[in-house]
């Protein structure tokens, strides 16, 4: 039993240490991105993707924020953009769909890289999957997001 506990103690502490050595520099890097206002540049870079998913230009910032900083940060910016009236219901749905599939790409990728996953295919796959799912809906079933909103509105009336 003592050997089991020692195994767990050594294993868990060394894993946490290994992750800390990567996560702390990463968070510094992310603060630098925030400080240098690099989000605007990144938004410009992903503009073709945004267009391909038939989303308005205003959707770019919440997408990039969610990709870099995580889903809560992205949600904050979506709420703000929605208040300004720049986004339709269906746009908001599509941004959420994209971000639940793919968010905090730096942190997530690095965590799994630290424990030995082959990270590059996972990262590329996740981004492509989010774009593919959103673009497929935008091109083939553009009515789905609106319909989901209406269905819920009916349910909440009953």
């Amino acid at each position, binding site marked *: 039993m003592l050997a089991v506990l020692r195994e767990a103690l050594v294993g868990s502490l060394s894993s946490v240490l290994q992750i800390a050595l990567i996560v702390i520099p990463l968070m510094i890097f992310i*603060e630098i991105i925030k400080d240098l206002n690099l989000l605007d540049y990144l938004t410009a870079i992903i503009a073709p993707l945004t267009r391909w998913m038939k989303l308005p230009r205003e959707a770019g910032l919440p997408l990039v924020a969610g990709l870099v900083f995580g889903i809560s940060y992205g*949600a904050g910016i979506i709420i703000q953009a929605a208040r300004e009236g720049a986004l339709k219901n269906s746009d908001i749905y599509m941004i959420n769909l994209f971000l639940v599939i793919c968010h905090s790409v730096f942190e997530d990728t690095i965590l799994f890289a630290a424990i030995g996953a082959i990270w590059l295919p996972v990262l590329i796959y996740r981004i492509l999957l989010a774009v593919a799912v959103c673009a497929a809906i935008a091109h083939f079933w553009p009515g789905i997001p609106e319909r989901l909103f209406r269905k819920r509105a009916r349910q909440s009336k009953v």
Partner: protein
Amino acid sequence: MSWKTILRGAKNGLSITWELARVIIPVYFGVTILQYTPVLPWISKHMVPVMQLLGLPGEASLALVLGWFLHTYAAIGAMLPLGLSIKETTIMAVMVLLAHGLPMEAAVAKQTGVPVAGLVFTRIALSFLSGYLFNLVL
């Protein structure tokens, strides 16, 4: 950009490390101990048919479920004691990253006003589909 930026980043990094430690250490202990009881072998035996399709050992099912309900850190804490191979770790990475922290992240999405049931379902479906694909390709 200044020292303040770097300091703020370091502070965030430390607080994330603390959050990680708080979850990974207890889950790691729990799973390590469970491995020596009949519980985890029993669960994994019953999960083998599903997990085989994903190229994963039965024990990894516990990590997937912990990841769904809690978050990535809990899944990592439960994966580490299993000593998975690089291929298995990569399959777990893609599956956990597509579906984790479902209750919490659904709550966040809900704050933006969208109906979330479809989103949660999509994530779980994509997670299994992707695990299956990665197992075939890797």
